[in-house]
């Protein structure tokens, strides 16, 4: 029966109470949340956003204000991830910043649920993550405030279940109150444990999760990048698909606004430089713009405020050509580019460590190799290579490792060659000064880059498959092979080549260092060594200083076996050290968590014993 108030307030409610003593009062409307719909995050966020708007106007309560933090943390973290992503050059590292953001929040949410909540529930029956809705519809954590727990929302059945789990005697008086005390104790313990461990668990779990996800994310992003670049390339060169001219440019072409047209193409050229030049080849930086500029000058001539039909068409062609150049360079960058995030660069990046494993370097070797000086490292690697028992099997495995990246590299090279042949006329007839004062066309520049990348990969990785052959033919030179073309050996080769003395040794050394290259390439090396100042495939021109010559040749020669293996060992060792440190701290955190959970609910000076048979709870003892 409900209490009725007269509309004019003349009847006092007290009078009604006194007349109906067995009246039922309004029961609290709160309830425990047993199952939340999956969409509750969306409705919660929506409600919080509404509360945010009200709070900005000055309306709200402690509860609504408390919830604003969630949105702020989320927005702040997204801002951080976006800023870090912007600062990163490659798309895969950009993606990783958002993965880091995700793993951070996942760790923050999962730690109290999986690593504290679940074991505590298993041990004591207490669910520290239990939520409830109060009479005002506010959602809260049931055990958040130990001094205010709405016990009336928990059924006797549930309390008895927890009491059984905690071995409270069934016959004891006031079993429910004793259970409440125990639950309060466990909740304080679990909340404290959560706060003490969250600062460790969140970054540790987040790092480990991100590290596990990284290869998949990188591979996914790279695959996506390559496919996207390939599609864009095919579209740009598809004669059936018309490339649409930028309307702004088209308008200026029609009206003969030469100044605007110049500005427009200067911008296009600069964009090409910014996007590709620094990443592809330092020496070629700011050169792509030159092709566009030269062609523009030749089209415009002395025109100032009007353009004839020929000029107009040539400008449209130039626009289309810049688009083709952009797509071709984009494909190069996504596949062969010497930068983080290029598909093949990363594919090759995995090879050294695989080779280290195949060459049977154990943990001890890797540790030694990573910290040894070059002489000791050379000895170590030579010893290791000469001690390999089934070396044919090892060599085959090495060849297997490089097979896929090599095939993909050649495939990308062929694609670029195919499309590069289709670049005719216009800006592709123009030449620009690059690197060492050579005049090169766009195609030349692109092809040189492609060949360099292929040679580099070939020289560095294929060389490793020759160690067995070297060891058999000139065993004493295995160490020379391992050390590779050092300054000294290069100098020796130079002298031998120029003086013509000891031709046998000269041939031996050439074979040792360059045997994996084709005859053409070997002849180029010989040629370059004989007369560094003559024009070879690398255009070694007059006035070039010896350092540059060596740099160019070294680039062609790839990475030397010792440096290659030592770098791989260092990487492996660093990763091992990192895993060791993160693993040790994670293990310590887990151990601390496990011990604390094992101790939960036990009697101590803050929680006197309540278990005595037929005994009483703490309150009654006083």
């Amino acid at each position, binding site marked *: 029966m409900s209490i009725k108030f007269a509309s004019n307030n003349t009847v006092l409610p007290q009078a009604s109470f006194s007349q109906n003593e067995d009246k039922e009062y309004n029961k609290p409307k709160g309830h425990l949340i047993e199952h939340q719909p999956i969409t509750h995050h969306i409705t919660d966020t929506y409600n919080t956003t509404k509360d945010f708007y009200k709070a900005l106007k000055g309306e*709200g309560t402690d509860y609504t204000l408390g919830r604003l933090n969630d949105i*702020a943390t989320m927005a702040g973290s997204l801002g951080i991830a976006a800023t870090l992503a912007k600062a990163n050059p490659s798309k895969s590292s950009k993606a990783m910043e958002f993965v880091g953001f995700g793993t951070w929040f996942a760790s923050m949410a999962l730690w109290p649920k999986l690593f504290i909540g679940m074991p505590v529930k298993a041990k004591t029956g207490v669910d520290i993550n239990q939520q409830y809705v109060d009479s005002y519809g506010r959602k809260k954590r049931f055990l958040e405030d130990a001094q205010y727990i709405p016990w009336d929302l928990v059924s006797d059945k549930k309390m008895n279940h927890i009491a059984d789990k905690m071995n409270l005697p069934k016959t004891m008086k006031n079993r429910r109150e004793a259970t409440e005390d125990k639950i309060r*104790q466990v909740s304080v*313990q679990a909340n404290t444990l959560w706060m003490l461990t969250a600062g*460790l668990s969140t970054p540790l779990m987040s790092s480990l999760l991100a590290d596990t996800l990284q290869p998949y994310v990188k591979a996914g992003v790279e695959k996506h990048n390559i496919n996207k670049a390939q599609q864009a390339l095919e579209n740009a060169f598809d004669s059936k698909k018309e490339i649409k001219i930028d309307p702004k440019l088209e308008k200026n072409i029609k009206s003969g606004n030469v100044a605007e047209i110049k500005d427009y193409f200067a911008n296009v050229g600069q964009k090409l430089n910014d996007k590709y030049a620094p990443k592809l080849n330092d020496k070629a930086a700011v050169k792509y713009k030159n092709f566009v500029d030269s062609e523009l000058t030749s089209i415009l001539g002395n025109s100032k405020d009007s353009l004839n039909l020929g000029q107009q068409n040539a400008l449209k062609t130039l626009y289309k050509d810049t688009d083709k150049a952009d797509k071709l360079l984009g494909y190069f960058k996504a596949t062969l580019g010497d930068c983080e995030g290029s598909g093949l660069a990363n594919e090759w990046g995995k090879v050294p460590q695989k080779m280290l494993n195949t060459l049977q370097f154990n943990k001890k070797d890797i540790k030694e190799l990573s910290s040894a000086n070059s002489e000791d490292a050379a000895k170590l690697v030579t010893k290791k290579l000469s001690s390999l028992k089934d070396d044919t099997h090892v060599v085959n495995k090495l060849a297997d490792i490089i097979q896929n990246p090599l095939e993909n590299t050649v495939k990308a090279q062929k694609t670029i060659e195919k499309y590069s042949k289709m670049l005719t006329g216009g800006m592709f007839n123009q030449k620009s000064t690059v690197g060492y004062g050579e005049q090169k066309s766009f195609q030349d520049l692109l092809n040189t880059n492609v060949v360099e990348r292929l040679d580099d990969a070939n020289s560095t990785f294929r060389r490793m498959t020759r160690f067995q052959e070297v060891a058999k033919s000139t065993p004493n030179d295995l160490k020379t092979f391992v050390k590779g073309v050092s300054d000294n050996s290069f100098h020796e080769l130079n002298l031998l080549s120029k003086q013509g003395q000891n031709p046998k040794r000269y041939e031996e050394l050439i074979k040792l260092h360059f045997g994996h290259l084709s005859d053409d390439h070997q002849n180029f090396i010989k040629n370059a060594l004989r007369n560094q100042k003559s024009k070879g495939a690398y255009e070694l021109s007059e006035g070039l200083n010896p350092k540059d010559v060596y740099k160019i040749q070294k680039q062609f020669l790839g990475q030397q076996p010792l440096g290659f293996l030592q770098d791989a060992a260092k990487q492996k060792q660093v990763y091992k050290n990192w895993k060791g440190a993160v693993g040790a701290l994670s293990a310590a955190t887990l151990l601390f968590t496990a011990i604390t959970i094992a101790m939960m609910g036990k009697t101590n000076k803050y929680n006197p014993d309540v278990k005595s048979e037929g005994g009483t709870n703490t309150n009654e003892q006083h």
Partner: protein
Amino acid sequence: MSNFSINKPIQKYNYQRYVSFKGNEPTEDKKQNNEKAQEVPNLQDKALSSSPLSKLKTTALTTAKLPEYAYRGLKGDQNANFYEFLQLGNIPYLVGGGVLYKCFDWGGKGAAKNANLKLAGVLLYYGMIKASQMAIDTPVKMFRGIDLNQPYRHMSDLKVIDKKGTSPKRTEYHKLYESVDFTRWDLLYDRNGKKVNSKYDKLAHKMNANEEMNDSDSSLKPRIRSLIIQAKAYKTLLIAPFVTIAIGMASQKPWENLTTSSIKEGYQKAFSNKGILNKAKYAGLTTYQHFVKPIPDSFKAYWGSNKTAQGVILGTAALVGIANLHILSKSSLKKEKIAPPPDKQPETAQTKEVKKENVKEGGNK
């Protein structure tokens, strides 16, 4: 100093050591003890000074209590409360940043660049969070006289420990305006002075009230409440752009020297000098070079890095301006019609009659 000790003041009054309560019924004992508690200033809640030193003291005392909160919390102390839980919440906030940095630092030399960024990022993150709060707190204090961070000492009652109903107390440090629903208005009254409302009157003046008020406390409370809510909301809103700037700054070149080895080397060199003054001087210089100098430099570098950065910085500055204008204009009493105190109220026909009657009555007596 004794004002700030958490348990000692209670022991000092050895007449009872504890203030006793017996059960829930209001007994004579309880009444007496309550009266005693009222008489002893150290057992009452008290608003503390707004000075930076006072705030530093309360922060230091609260921080020093964290190990105790953690220990008792791990034991499941039946007196542990939400305040202690919130204080423990500072641990993951501070430890998390450090561990995050170490997770990169352990990556060796290859990850050094990333680790620098994370260390600078973590430090700037904390700094910028503080800055985002100050961007609202400072104008509010300056123009409205309300120090949103003013501390007060709260004596928290613990569970009854004996048959007499003895209830020990613990000291907690809160902020006067931390709660919207339970703002400590009572601590703003001047109990000993001539005028109970003197503090509210001062606030009214700061809030641009044109004249004196009749009940400054009840007139101001809803407005201050609204101001607290707005300030909290805007402070929360500002966190996101401020930390974005923090990380943007951390990604800049001026922080490149912030490596563990270079910091270690810097301090080792500083401390290898002879004489305490020299040591302090060079340690200060190392701190300046590693941690202070890069702040303005990296800000300039971030500003120049791209247009998005400029947009973020200008947008944040605009947001700070809008937030303060909104809060200050809403809390202004300039255009409000406020009832003045009775003695200054203009005379109406009704009040004149009442006065006459009073005079008559007085005369009759």
